């Protein structure tokens, strides 16, 4: 743990496609970059016991989660030759079809970005205390478990 407060990764509600487009545009001044790789998590309308998921409501142990996101980011910069890395995760209600996770890595070389992105996404799934409540059409719910 360091003294500096980690960056806040969380955004209220869904992550918009415009926001993602703008993030991409911002990297066009960085002309040492040759390859970007972007992961987007999208809420699925799964059917469970005959009922359809209409949204996931995300909560998090925010301080610990931001510290973990920070650790993952630091480790990824040590392990891989990355120029940039950005992570955004939703809090609150994200409807089926909307985006709840946006991970963006950039590097001079393409081989690096594939390995880095998969590493970061798997670490997020395993290490970060975020909790998804799957809300069904009849307002009942269940707590999501990651595979």
């Amino acid at each position, binding site marked *: *743990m360091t003294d500096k407060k980690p960056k806040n990764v969380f955004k209220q509600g869904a992550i918009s496609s415009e926001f993602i487009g703008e993030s991409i545009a911002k990297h066009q001044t960085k002309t040492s970059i040759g390859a970007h790789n972007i992961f987007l*998590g999208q809420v699925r309308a799964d059917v469970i016991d005959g009922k359809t998921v209409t949204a996931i409501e*995300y*909560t*998090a*142990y925010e*301080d*610990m*989660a931001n*510290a973990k996101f920070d650790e993952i980011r630091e480790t990824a910069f040590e392990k891989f030759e990355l120029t940039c890395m950005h992570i955004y*995760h939703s809090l609150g209600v994200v409807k089926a079809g909307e985006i*709840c*996770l946006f991970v963006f890595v950039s590097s001079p070389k393409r081989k690096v970005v594939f390995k880095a992105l998969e590493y970061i*996404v798997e670490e*997020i*799934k*395993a*290490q*970060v*205390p*975020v*909790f*998804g*409540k799957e809300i069904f059409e009849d307002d009942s719910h269940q*707590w*999501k*478990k*990651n595979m």
Partner: protein
Amino acid sequence: MIITIKYFGLIAEVTNQSEESIDFSGRLISDLLNTLYAKYPDLKNKDFQVAQNQELVSESTEITGQELALLPPFSGG
């Protein structure tokens, strides 16, 4: 000592609150869990991990009194 425990997700549904302070005299995480199991019998059947000072700890860890939290399985992304 008085310690504060945070609850999340399914665990907060079992305890019916997101945070509470209790007067606690045990030494280890396992002692705290026994106290909580007595108070919330349904907790025993639930899958969760314990964090102290924002790091996951085992049942044999000593309680320092800093931030404690009961965390159900993570399901981010």
